[in-house]
């Protein structure tokens, strides 16, 4: 019951946090920025609209938003929110969740290729490219976490005091993991410096250009899925950078949601002070995360011995 409630709160708050990034960016730009509830307004507005479908598209175009939202929502069900037990958990659920997000990506790409638009093809090719390296990074991290805990489930890594134990065994090298995870977050969620969600030139986009032709409730599903996915990655970083528990669950959860403000804030600051990388530089940036995770794993293993 409690985990269902927490999941519900997380899903409800995910758009709010994403709006917080916009607020930060507006602050850096010297603007007032949109209201914090902007994403709720947008979602409601989109849900009330009808849709325009391209004559080139097939059922895959409609499957895209549906599957990407489903995969993001199911992935969130395996996350121990605020260190409390997750709704679902089994040995090997990490692999399932990562491949499930891959399924979401497959359908996002398929929906983009369905429109016959060269721009969307361009975005699709990039969406197929960069996450390959992210996946390798995540699996290296998994190896580290597996060797430290002997488990292959998200709840075993991020529940209760386990993150604190990571810091005790791995020490400062865990910072590498945090940075690598942050890079993966930026890449997987189409944030600057990998992708610029606010740019106006389709040629330079990745994720935004893939959803150009979606409209109405379909588009709302894509947006919601993107908020969930951002929340998914942020939740891990939040647990890693603030691994302590206060005792009562309510306090822990409240602190967790407060730390999330900080993480989304960092994403906003990164977006404000950095420019997007040239497309051919992006792989190098993403590879950094792989190198960091690999370093952390090797150093930690040497240390354990």
């Amino acid at each position, binding site marked *: 019951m409690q985990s269902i409630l927490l999941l519900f709160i997380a899903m409800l708050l995910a758009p709010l946090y994403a709006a917080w990034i916009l607020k930060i960016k507006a602050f850096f730009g010297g603007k007032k920025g949109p209201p914090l509830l902007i994403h709720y307004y947008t979602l409601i507005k989109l849900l009330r609209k009808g849709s325009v479908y391209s004559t080139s598209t097939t059922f895959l175009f409609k499957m895209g938003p549906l599957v990407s939202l489903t995969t993001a929502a199911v992935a969130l069900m395996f996350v121990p929110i605020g260190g409390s037990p997750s709704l*679902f958990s089994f040995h090997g659920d990490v692999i399932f969740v990562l491949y499930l997000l*891959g399924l979401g990506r*497959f359908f996002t790409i*398929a929906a983009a290729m369905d429109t016959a638009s060269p721009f969307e093809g361009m975005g699709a*090719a990039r969406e197929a490219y960069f996450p390959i390296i992210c996946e390798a990074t995540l699996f290296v991290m998994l190896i580290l976490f597996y060797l430290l805990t002997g488990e292959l489930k998200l709840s075993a890594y991020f529940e209760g005091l386990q993150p604190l134990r990571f810091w005790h065994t791995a020490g400062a090298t865990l910072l590498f993991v945090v940075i690598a995870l942050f890079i993966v977050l930026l890449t997987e969620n189409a944030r600057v410096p990998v992708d610029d969600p606010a740019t106006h030139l389709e040629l330079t986009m990745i994720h935004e250009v893939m959803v150009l032709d979606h409209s109405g*409730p379909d588009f709302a599903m894509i947006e919601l899925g993107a908020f969930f996915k951002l929340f998914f990655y942020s939740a891990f970083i939040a647990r890693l950078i603030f691994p302590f528990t206060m005792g009562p669950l309510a306090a822990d959860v409240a602190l967790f949601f407060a730390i999330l403000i900080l993480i989304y804030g960092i994403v906003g600051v990164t977006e404000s002070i950095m420019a997007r990388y040239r497309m051919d530089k992006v792989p190098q940036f993403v590879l950094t995360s792989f190198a960091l995770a690999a370093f952390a794993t090797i150093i930690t293993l040497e240390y354990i011995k």
Partner: protein
Amino acid sequence: MSYLFLSVSIVLCGGILPFLFIRQFNRMRAVAAFFTATGCLLGLVSAVLLLAGNDQPTISVGFLSSFTLDFKADGLSAFFLMVIFLISFLAAIYGYHYLDKPERAVRIAASHLFFSLLIAAMALVVTAYNIITFLLCWEIMSLASFFLVVHDHEIEENSKAGYLYAVYSQVGALFLLAAFGIMYASTGTLDFAAAASLSEPTKILVFALAFVGFGSKAGVFPFHAWLPHAHPAAPSHISALMSGVMIKTGVYGIVRLYHLLAWHTPLFGQIVIIAGMITGILGVIYALGQQDIKRMLAYSSVENIGIILIALGLGMIGVAAGQPLIAVLGFAGGFLHVLNHSLFKSLLFMGAGMVLHQTGTRAMDQLGGLIKRMPVTGSTFLIGSLAIAGLPPFNGFVSEFLIYMGGFRGAALGKSYFVLSVLAIISLALIGGLALAAFTKVNGVVFQGEPRGVPAQNAAEHGSGMLVPMVILAAACLIVGLFPTFFMALAIRAVAALNLGYGRIPLAPFVPLTANITRAAALFLGVLVLLWILRSFCYRGKTITQAGTWGCGFTRPTARMQYTSSSFAASILNFFSTVAPLKEEHPAIKGRFPAPTHYHSQIQDIAELQITSLIVRPVIFLFDKLRWLQHGEIHMYIGYILLAIVVALVFVFQ
């Protein structure tokens, strides 16, 4: 066992009887399809019964008065027999509508003959239990598949492919002959069971030689170069059978030899796992770089052989390290992937065959938008692509999940096992990501968007005999993905036959793993249906309009502006350009009124490049120097024969 031989005989009838009906084309292909399919169905049933039962029937037949042909069907054989007969059954049905040109009746009858020979030979290869039987069946298999590859031999590309395949399979067979020859020389018997008594250095030599021989059949890098040529050349149901099943006999050979040598050294595991990683990663990179749909699928088979070898290598490492869980997860994951790959790869080849049959082209960049005109082919091809990319809730995920489980346990072992297991996990992750890119590319370019050329505009589906097998295979991909426990149990039966010293392998530690996959897949499907209902609720009573794709302000978009297969893959391939160099060809534009020019690009396979310069050129140089032996004078040739006999006699009577 007798049912097995009965089914093989019925299959062979399906090859011979069509020659009686050459003048009645429809009756001929009906007879061929009926007998082959019936034989395969009977074989499938007997294989499953064998796998479920505990007996290991053996049979011995005298041959040429000096040899005996020994056959033995244990769990390992039965598992492979199941795969062979299942895919052959569907391929036989598919072939009924695929080979439909009455004016080529003789050739098609010949194709049916070699098709049935290939099925029979494969079934006998996996049950053969002495050296001579095995090599005999192996050669029949290679030759039958050679004749199937050169079905359309008047096309120069195809006859070249056939030649390449013949060279690879014969050189591979020579390596096998060398390996088995050493075995025979050391033990003095043709019996397989004697292999366990070899000395350890001999075992290493035999394993290494046989690994090259079996690897060249399976498509292990760098012996895979025939696959991307031969598979596109063969008719599509033959490609499905060769890629889905025949190359697995190479995998069978490796496992069988490991079983026979009965030496649980980590060395074999290291060889197999390293070969698997290289094969898997390079295979998928080359697959991504192809512009020909069947070539792309052939390279993807190379990739999947890599995954299977990674799994088997993990299993061997687990055995060597004394870790039964890793061993069973590795071997069972590998066997399950053999089954899974045969399901989705033959599905994909059949889909590609439908596209080729109806549009007349294999070039992806000429196609597009086919899912609208070929809904069944498009949807089943999509399911096959999802499965081969290892995505839940399809079957590819199940085997990869089990292999990951074995890999993670291996990483906890320490020492050299740690490095190999970690590399195996990262390779699998990399292969998964690249396979997703490769198969979104095929789907996106061939089946989605708008037609890029005339052939794709007027295509339609044809032949229920071609559609039904694809639907069955797609359903099988989903069923194995949703309910893997039963199939895991079958794979564990095959592992038990390896005599790893675990006795009866209990199912208990593995059932929770597969049951979790079922639950997780059900959760996903449940949420999907729920959101789908919510979505339809949102769209109730809304206006839905159709319009053109938004061209970002461009007013005259054409279908040729779409992203092509080359452009989709370009940036990823650029990242891997050290192993996949790009060959570009574009004549410079000259003069004030330049003539039309062209641009051609192709990804090159480094194995092919290196084999040309390192092996083919020296060999040609050497044989060029020996040309004087070949002078055309008959009496000298007779002299050579005499000389050879004398030399042979000296060896025999020394």
